[in-house]
């Protein structure tokens, strides 16, 4: 009998060991660890939860909010910031920042308008290609100067191109907007497919593309590795310089696409467009959980960040809140988002402590 009991106990403990091995989250010892894991997952899902909560509250407060027309508006308003935020996210993941995207967007609308006046490039394709190439070129300048010039932080380089690209846009356009865009561009900025605005479709398409690129390809992995630990990345043989340059080129391309959407919406080359858009893009990425420490963030959450910004503006407008207060609210949301980033770091330190124990 005694032997039998021992055997049963032994089997039970073996089973427990197997469960612990296969499913560590089920074992009793890791109860508080489970709790921390849940909190961590909540932080990951945080932006989506915040957006859902905002939509719920606004639907209750305003009968207009959840109508199709308003949601369409909201989507279009968010689209340009969302595209910029996707590019910004890539740069932020590498520990950088791109302040030039608003100006790059404006420069792209102007070069697009000039292309439309040039016989060779006047097709819809030619104009769009010119705008995207303009964005890529500014990004390349940012990246090459930052990397080859061994500038300590991208902040200064992109601040310089923020001024330079804006100036160039004003010079090339003579300081006035140049009306007229080909139909393809107008569609990109203001068209519809069924009930869905084209800008929203562009954001979704770019979002999927960027997400697949960042999470499933080697270059995307290198972008995260470079942001996570640049020294280790270069010792691991990752071409850190080229990876960094590519991040700014991607951000520039995103600014070019945002330029196409802006030009389409306003039907013009618009040298003062996108003023302060870089700050919205950065805010969207940070609200979406990207970490300024680098190495963290995802595309979907950056887009959600852009939607949160647009929702706050749209909702406060509907509720007749003084627009000056909107700025205060957005400032508060950014602070909360950054605080959550710090909180997440601390939770992870705690998790590490448990793993060591």
């Amino acid at each position, binding site marked *: 009998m005694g032997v039998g009991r021992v055997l049963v106990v032994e089997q039970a403990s073996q089973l427990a060991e197997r469960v612990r091995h296969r499913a560590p989250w089920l074992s009793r010892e890791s109860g508080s660890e489970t709790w921390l894991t849940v909190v961590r997952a909540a932080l990951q899902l945080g932006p989506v939860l915040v957006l859902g909560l905002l939509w719920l509250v606004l639907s209750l407060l305003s009968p207009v909010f959840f109508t199709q027309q308003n949601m369409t508006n909201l989507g279009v308003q968010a689209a340009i910031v969302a595209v910029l935020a996707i590019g910004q996210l890539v740069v932020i993941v590498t520990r950088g920042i791109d302040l030039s995207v608003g100006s790059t967007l404006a420069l792209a609308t102007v070069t697009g308008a000039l292309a439309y006046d040039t016989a060779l490039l006047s097709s819809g394709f030619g104009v769009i290609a010119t705008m995207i190439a303009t964005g890529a070129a500014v990004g390349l300048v940012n990246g090459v100067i930052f990397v080859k010039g061994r500038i300590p932080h991208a902040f200064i380089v992109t601040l310089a191109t923020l001024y330079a690209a804006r100036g160039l846009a004003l010079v090339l356009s003579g300081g006035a907007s140049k009306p007229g865009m080909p139909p393809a561009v107008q569609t990109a900025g203001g068209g519809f497919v069924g009930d869905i605005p084209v800008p929203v479709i562009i954001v979704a398409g770019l979002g999927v593309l960027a997400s697949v690129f960042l999470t499933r390809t*080697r270059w995307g992995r290198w972008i995260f590795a470079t942001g996570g630990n640049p020294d*280790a990345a270069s010792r691991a043989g990752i071409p850190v310089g080229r990876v960094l340059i590519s991040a700014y080129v991607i951000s520039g391309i995103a600014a070019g696409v945002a330029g196409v959407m802006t030009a389409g919406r306003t039907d013009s080359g618009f040298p003062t467009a996108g003023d302060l858009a870089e700050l919205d893009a950065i805010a969207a990425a940070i609200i979406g959980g990207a970490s300024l420490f680098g190495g963290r963030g995802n595309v979907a959450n950056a887009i959600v960040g852009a939607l949160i910004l647009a929702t706050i503006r749209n909702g406060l407008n509907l509720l007749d809140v003084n627009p000056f207060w909107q700025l205060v609210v957005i400032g508060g949301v950014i602070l909360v988002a950054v605080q959550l980033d710090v909180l997440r770091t601390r939770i992870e330190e705690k998790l590490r402590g448990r793993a060591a124990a």
Partner: protein
Amino acid sequence: MSDRNGRSAASSQPEPLLEARNVTKRFGAVRALDDVSLTLHGREVLALLGDNGAGKSTLIKIMSGVHQPDEGELLMDSAAIALRSPTDARAVGIETVYQDLGLFDNLSVAANFYAGRETVRPGWLGSFGFLRERSMSRHITELLDLLEVRVPHASAPVGLMSGGQRQGIAVARAAAFASRVVILDEPTAALGVREAGNVLDLVKRFAERDVAVILISHNLEHVTQVADRAVILRQGRKVGEVVPSPENHDLIVSRIVGGREGPAPGLATPAGSYTDSK
């Protein structure tokens, strides 16, 4: 070819796997390494001992391709090799675990292992650089099992793991890719007793995999446990070579700190292994 013939023709002394010959490295006016020579044989665990600033780190950085020697040369299988970058060193089968571990806290165990040498899918997906996540993670799981390194999950980010697990991952990563030599810089410095023991077990297992080890450590006890031989550096010079054992700790320490010049008279070393290089 001639290498192999040479090796089989060699008499009692087998030809070294890796050799540094008269290596000198200067940083400005500082001579970090002064005419240092050292040999590493196959399946050997060689410890590098020395105080801070003795030149240990500079020497391993030369052997891992981070620095290039100002004078002298490196030889592998008796043929001169030039290591212009860490990539060159890895290409000839030398892997290095730096003191900072070189891990990516934001990436999974699998991503950490393959950082810089990810495998891509076959076919057109591969030409776009699409990763073979599943096969990479399967390999890792097998390898970690083999090396008895326990981690929560290959897909969990490394940043959430304990010091011992991280060290284990870094060493296992080197083990996975090193075909000839693994260089370990203070692999046990930040670890508790049990975790350090695990890492030392890993080090011993390198010989089974036919990989030689160069080990930097301040912990003489650990060195005695795993090292076949120890080279002592002081102020950029090689000041001795010894088979470490509990009996000659005092001698080693005095060599490291330079308290005594030349071999101590009457201090017998086991197997007469103490040789003075000066």
